[in-house]
């Protein structure tokens, strides 16, 4: 882990519940974790596991109505949970910034990309027009856009998806945030571009001493670029630990199922892709037991009636929520 042991983000017992026509929907339940300075943490899980809601709740980006947030999100000592818009606006951009999933929709299509970076610099940092432009060109160069002074005047429509995502990152970095939330930053991109963008994020994290929360459903994305991984299922953390431990010594059957369902290069061609049987639970009909029990090969009667809490594993910082954990030595290596 990092030398800097100061905790940048402390999430404590965070729950996000939506009021829906079908009753309360617990999208995120009792999530606690912390993040150090200059650390990258990965949040993985299937679609609907609550990872996007979690990242948005940490940002303080819930809808204005029909949502209840309990617990605490301490960002560099500032309470983000249930904070006022005015308070969060001061932190947005300078303390925490966000990279969105789809670079096709996260840039304003009718504004020149340079102006979109300028905006933030002039409004938040009070820069003059010339200074902001110079800084914007610097930022474009920083994120690896060729001939940045020229591209400054381009419209998003004139750039490729990978280029746009670089611009999105440049905008996010404009006010030098301490924490960067990347919600599936590569899902909307070509596979060949994905690695470039992830490497860029990694490199920028080191250069600018940021922390990064990398939300993804792709284990390959988090494997080499995170120090720790959080595995989410049905809005809860089911396993958390150092990346190495989660890949090699995971104890929760769900984590194993996730790992096994990612295709491996070493497989013979035409190997059938392993899938997790069943489908994610309906969060409106959550039971008292383990949410994964209906899809789990190891489930017992206890799993269906009592919810397992996170318990520490053998390695420091590793914990999992399971009544019938896999043997500690079992290992599936990352592809």
């Amino acid at each position: 882990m990092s030398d800097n042991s100061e905790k940048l983000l402390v999430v404590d017992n965070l729950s996000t519940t939506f009021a829906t026509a079908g009753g309360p929907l617990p999208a995120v339940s009792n999530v606690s974790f912390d993040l150090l300075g200059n650390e990258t943490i990965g949040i993985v899980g299937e679609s609907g596991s609550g990872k996007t809601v979690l990242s948005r709740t940490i940002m303080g980006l819930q809808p204005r109505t029909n949502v209840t947030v309990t617990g605490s999100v301490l960002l560099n000592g500032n309470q983000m949970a249930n904070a006022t818009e005015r308070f969060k606006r001061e932190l947005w951009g300078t303390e925490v910034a966000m990279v969105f999933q789809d670079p096709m929709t996260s840039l304003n299509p009718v504004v020149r990309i340079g102006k979109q970076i300028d905006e933030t610099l002039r409004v938040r940092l009070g820069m003059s027009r010339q200074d902001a432009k110079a800084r914007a060109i610097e930022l474009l160069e920083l994120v690896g856009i060729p001939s940045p002074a020229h591209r400054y005047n381009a419209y998003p429509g004139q750039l490729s998806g990978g280029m746009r995502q670089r611009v999105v990152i440049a905008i996010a970095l404009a006010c030098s945030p301490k924490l960067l939330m990347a919600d599936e930053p590569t899902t909307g991109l070509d596979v060949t571009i994905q690695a470039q963008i992830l490497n860029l994020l990694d490199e920028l994290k080191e250069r600018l001493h940021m922390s990064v929360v990398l939300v993804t459903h792709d284990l390959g994305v988090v494997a080499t670029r995170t120090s720790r991984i959080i595995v989410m299922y049905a809005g809860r953390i089911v396993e958390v630990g150092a990346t190495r431990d989660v890949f090699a010594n995971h104890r929760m059957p769900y984590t194993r199922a996730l790992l096994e369902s990612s295709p491996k290069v070493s497989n013979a061609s035409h190997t059938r892709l392993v899938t997790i049987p069943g489908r994610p639970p309906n969060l409106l009909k959550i039971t008292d037991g383990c949410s994964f029990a209906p899809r789990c090969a190891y489930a017992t009667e206890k799993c269906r009636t009592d919810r397992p809490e996170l318990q520490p594993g053998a390695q420091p910082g590793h914990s999992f929520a399971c009544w019938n954990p896999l043997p500690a030595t079992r290992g599936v290596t990352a592809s």
Partner: protein
Amino acid sequence: MSDLIFIAEEVSLVEKPEKKEPLGLLFWFCIGWIALNFVGAIFANVLPLQNPLYQDYNTINAAPSLHHLFGTDDIGRDIFARIVYGSRVSIAVGFGSMLIGYCIGAPLGMLAAYRRGRFDTIVTTIMYIFLAFPAIIATIAVLSFWTPRSVFKIIIVIGLASVPLVYRVIRTATLSISTKDFVVAAKVQGARDRRILMKELLPNIAPIGISFLLIGVATVIALEGTLAFLGLSVVVPTPSWGNMINESRTVLQQNPWLVIFPSLALCLFLLCLNFIGDRLRHHFDVTEVKL
């Protein structure tokens, strides 16, 4: 070879993103026509026109000639002069009332769609109540009592009647944009609401707003004609394109020129406006790369 050309084109496109195709001859013709109309409307007094109100009983229902370019009507007035003078009322009513409609309807629509919640519910409900009443009946009711009639009053009444229509269009356009990620992205960069409305939303809904504005101008010019038909527009004998068309209906069989020329003036004016709008929107569209 064709690959090479393609690559060359791509490179030049990237290097010169500002280069755009010319607007075309037809566009400039339309601009010229609209300009001519405006010049006519503004300088009708000083132009060498005949008196639009002078009734020459020796030349009734005359066909176009050198002396009367567009002929004369059933009481011997020069149609050409009446069309030029009539453009004053039509253009003023068309643009003036849409200006009022946009000044009130557009900010409300944007705000309602961006804010949502109670503000949106209340304003939208009020607007829909107004929409439920046929605008023409409301305008008739107000104009019957608000006398003496003048262009100014007509502009205000039609302008207010157009507010709910403008509101609805702008609100819908804003709604479709305000949920996009770039609005959230601007927000989490610390942008304030006013900034998001002006810098993020407005440039995106402007093309829709302008298109609807031009259609609105056309509709309002026609509506002024309808009011004229009911005797609720400017007091006769002041000409407007609308009331000229309506007056012509009694002598349609004897003198078809009487309906053809004002209709042509109205039609060409609106056609040019719409063509200009369409061309400009295409010209300034930056959302798709033109290869």
